[in-house]
C-alpha cells in the first residue's frame, strides 16, 4: 500500500464513495459531478423493506422519489371491472420509481411492493425543491434527465399501443 493510499484510507469515506459511484450510474443523475451526487446523497433517507411490504400504495399522493439500492420491487395496479392486481413491471437494484412526484404531488398510478428484502433510498420532494433553489445547475440536469426518462417511457407505451 502506497503512502497516498494509506492517507486516503484515513480521510476518505469508502461507503460514501461507493454510494456516489452507484448513484452516478442511474439515468436521472447522469452528467452530474461526484460532488453534485454527494450533495443529493446527503439529502436522501434510507429505509429497508421486508418481502411483501408495500412501499407506496396506488392512489396515495406521491411526495418522494424511490431508488432501489438492493432487492427487487414489483409495480402493479388494479385493473378491470374486478379490480384485479396487474403487474406492470419488475424493478431491481439501480432502478427507480416515483420520479413524477418530484414534479407534482399527484396520486400514484401504481402500487410498489418489495419482493425481497429491499434497501431503498428516498428523496423528499420539498428537499429536492430546496436543493434546486440552492443549486439550479444540479436541478436543471436532474429535471432534464427525468424528462428524458418520462419521454422514453411514453414512447414505449405508444409503441405497445400501436
Amino acid at each position: 500500500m502506497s503512502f497516498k493510499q494509506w492517507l486516503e484510507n484515513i480521510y476518505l469515506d469508502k461507503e460514501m464513495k461507493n454510494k456516489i459511484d452507484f448513484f452516478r450510474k442511474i439515468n436521472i443523475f447522469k452528467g452530474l459531478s461526484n460532488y453534485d451526487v454527494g450533495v443529493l446523497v446527503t439529502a436522501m433517507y434510507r429505509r429497508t423493506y421486508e418481502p411483501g411490504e408495500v412501499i407506496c400504495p396506488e392512489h396515495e399522493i406521491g411526495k418522494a422519489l424511490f431508488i432501489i439500492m438492493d432487492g427487487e420491487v414489483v409495480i402493479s395496479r388494479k385493473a378491470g371491472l374486478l379490480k384485479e392486481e396487474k403487474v406492470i413491471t419488475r424493478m431491481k437494484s439501480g432502478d427507480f420509481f416515483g420520479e413524477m412526484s418530484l414534479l407534482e404531488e399527484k396520486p400514484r398510478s401504481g402500487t410498489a411492493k418489495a419482493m425481497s428484502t429491499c434497501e431503498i433510498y428516498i428523496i423528499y420532494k420539498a428537499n429536492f425543491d430546496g436543493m434546486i433553489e440552492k443549486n439550479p445547475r444540479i436541478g436543471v440536469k436532474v429535471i432534464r434527465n427525468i424528462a428524458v426518462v418520462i419521454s422514453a417511457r411514453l414512447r414505449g407505451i405508444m409503441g405497445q399501443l400501436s
Partner: protein
Amino acid sequence: MTRNKYVWLMAGLLFVFWFAYQVRVALYPFLISVLLAYLFKPLVNHFTAQGYKKWLIITVMFLIGILLAVELAVFLVPRLVEEVTIMKDTLPSITGQVKAFLVRIQPSLEKIYPPLRAQSLPDLVGKKLTELATSLPAHVPAMLGNLLGWLYLTVLIPFITFALLLDADRMADWIFSIFPSRYTETVLSIISEINQVMSGFLQGHLMRIFWLTIITTLGLIYFGVNFALVFGLLTGVFNMVPVLGAWIGAIPPILLVVISGNMVLAVKLVIFFLLIHAFDNTVLSTYYLATSVNLHFVLVLFAIMVGAELYGVMGVILSVPVFSMIKVVTQILYHDYRDKMRVQEGIN
C-alpha cells in the same frame, strides 16, 4: 391513516410535550446540543458530499471551533472585564444621575398619573439600582463557580453534539424503521420539514444576530457611547428573542445617554436604532429568515410568552421554531388525512 389513528398520534405528540416539560432541566444540554448540531449540519454535509469521513470532519470542525472560541475570548474578555469594572465603579454616579433626572420629571409625571404622589420615584428607583449594583458582582463568582454549568459546557454538550452530528442519519433511518411502511412518506415529510424549519431558522437567526451585533457595536463606538462593547453584545443577546429583542436591546444605551443629559446624542441613537430596525426588517430578516418561519406576528408573541413560561430563556429562544414545527406537522397530518379521504371518496 384513519381518524382514530390521527387522534392517537396527536395524543402521542401531546404526551411527548408533557414529558419534555416534566424533565425540562435534564433536557437543557440536549436541547443546546440539538441546536448546535442543526447549525453545523450543513457544513458537515458539504464535506461529506466531497467524500471525507464524517468523524474526521466533525473533529476538525470542533478543533477549529475551540481555537476560534479561545481567540475570541482572549480578544473580548479583557475588554469586557474592563468595561464592566468601569460600569460597576460608575454605577453610583449613574444612580445619582437617575435620581436627579427623576426628581426633575416627577412633577410632570404626577400630573399625568396622580397616584405617583404617594411615593417618591427617585428613592424607589435609586434603591432598586443600589440593590442591583451590590447583587450583580456578588452573583458573578457563583455563576462562574457553577460546576454543573461548566461540566455541561465543556464535556456534555460537545459530546452530545458530536454524537448527533455523527449519527443523525442513522437516527432518521431508525425512526423510519419503527413506523409501518405505508406511513413512510408521511414520516419522511415530517422529518424533512422539521429539519428545514429548524436549520433555516437557527442558521438565519444566528447570521442576523451576528450582523446586528457588529453593526450596533460599531455604531455605538462611532457615537462615542460609554460601554459600547457591553451594550453591543447585549443587543446581540436580546436579539435572540424574536421580534421584541431588537427593541429591548436599544433601551439601555439610549436610557444611559438620556440620563446623562445629552439629548442630541439620545436623538441620534434613536434614529440609529430605527435605521438598524429598518435594515433588519427589509434586508437581514428578509434574506435570512424568509423561508424558515411563517407565523403571524400575534402567534409569534404568544409563542414567546408560552416559551418563557415553560422553559425560561431557552424557551424564549426556541419558541418560534418550535411553534413553526408544530404548525408544519399539524399541516402535514391534516393534508395527509384530507388527501386520503378525497382519494377514498374518488375510489368509492
